[in-house]
């Protein structure tokens, strides 16, 4: 509730439900609801229902062994691994901060990380490569695809091979990598790409 907007905002409603408001704020909120403000009452009901759902969900995580059993149910359809059906496609470099240095002000804002952007067909991937502790480096990135959950990443750096899966927003990270050129394999539902010689 503000001077300009008399209605109760989500923060106030959550604090009201959590009994985190002081007595004066509670009185103001209750007075507003009692006017009656139909919109705020409905919003309070909605917020309260969602809080109750969140608090009521006590289903434990599914045991990983069960997940594996469910995944195995699909095995007959997976006779031919997808990777074998996919040919390497060419990732097109769209941007490299080495080739197009950022202005000093922008560099101060984003640090000294090397920033790369590749087109993967109709999708794209952005990478940030940065030297970390002595002898190590980090890679962070974001895959811009319709369904990041269907993509898999494998990074080869020195003798290490590390798999990763993008989160729902396409974000991923590899930390504490051995410094030096590395290769990122990006495998999507229809094509796979190899991004080689990546270094900060």
């Amino acid at each position, binding site marked *: 509730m503000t001077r300009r907007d008399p209605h109760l905002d989500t923060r106030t409603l959550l604090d009201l439900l959590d009994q985190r408001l002081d007595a004066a704020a509670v009185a103001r909120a209750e007075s507003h609801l009692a006017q009656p403000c139909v919109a705020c009452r409905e919003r309070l009901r909605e917020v309260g229902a*969602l809080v109750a*759902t969140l608090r*009521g969900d006590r*289903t434990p995580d*599914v045991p990983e062994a*069960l997940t594996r059993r469910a995944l195995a149910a699909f095995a007959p359809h997976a006779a031919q691994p*997808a990777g074998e059906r996919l040919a390497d496609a060419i990732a097109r470099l769209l941007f490299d901060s080495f080739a197009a240095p950022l202005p000093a002000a922008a560099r101060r804002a984003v640090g000294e990380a090397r920033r790369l952007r590749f087109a993967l067909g109709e999708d794209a991937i952005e990478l940030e490569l940065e030297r970390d502790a002595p002898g190590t480096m980090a890679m962070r990135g974001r895959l*811009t695809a319709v369904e990041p959950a269907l993509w898999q990443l494998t990074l080869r750096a020195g003798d290490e091979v590390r798999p990763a899966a993008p989160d729902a927003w396409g974000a991923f990270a590899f930390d504490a990598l051995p410094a030096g050129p590395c290769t990122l394999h990006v495998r999507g539902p229809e094509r796979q790409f190899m991004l080689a010689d990546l270094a900060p």
Partner: protein
Amino acid sequence: MRPSPRPGGLDPDLDARLVARCQAGEPRAWEALVRRHQRLVWAVARAYRMDDEDRGDVFQEVFAALVRALPRMRDGRALVRWLSVTTDRIARTTALRRRREQAARVTPADGDALGLDALAAPDAPAGADLERLEREAMVRLGLAGLSERCRRLLLALYFEDPRPAYGTLAERLGVPVGSLGPTRARCFDRLREGLAAFERSRADDAAGISRTPPPTSPDDGASRRGAALHRARPAPAVRVAPLGTDR
């Protein structure tokens, strides 16, 4: 970096796309589908009185049934309802079978020590509140689609027991204590809006405002049978394998 424009969490069409990819034999789509909905299946199975081994069998059987149903599944957007109803049916059957086996072993001398009254109770097994469990599963999907910061904050506030103090939480997330209240409200609104949009999409489906053609195949019997299990709820446009005949 800008976030992906279409987070998978509560995208109403994601299930349809995953189902289509599974139908094309894409194992990673199957994995995404299983990981996306396994919590719902597990929650419904856990609503019945049975041991973990039986629950595990129910869980596996549901996904095996889904593999068999996939080739005939035409509207993946009704997958959530299909999974909850199918799990409910399989779990109920398993629980009743166990109950009959247990009752058959009871001798007169055992009497109430083995809980004969409970075995004979008309409401046993209790069954699952599918509406609530589906909503909980949708909320979890909504949480998965939020930014990592929002997800961590809401998971800590609503799922950790005991609930962490604001000071502890702020330290853990590396943010000032004063920012937690506004951030929580913003994250909560994103979750609420995502769920509302998803519910609207499901309601449109239930009202027949569907982007898919109306049912015309013999598989439509599944829709009627599935809906009959839950008449109080709006009947979704389920066009999948007939329930109870796909095993």
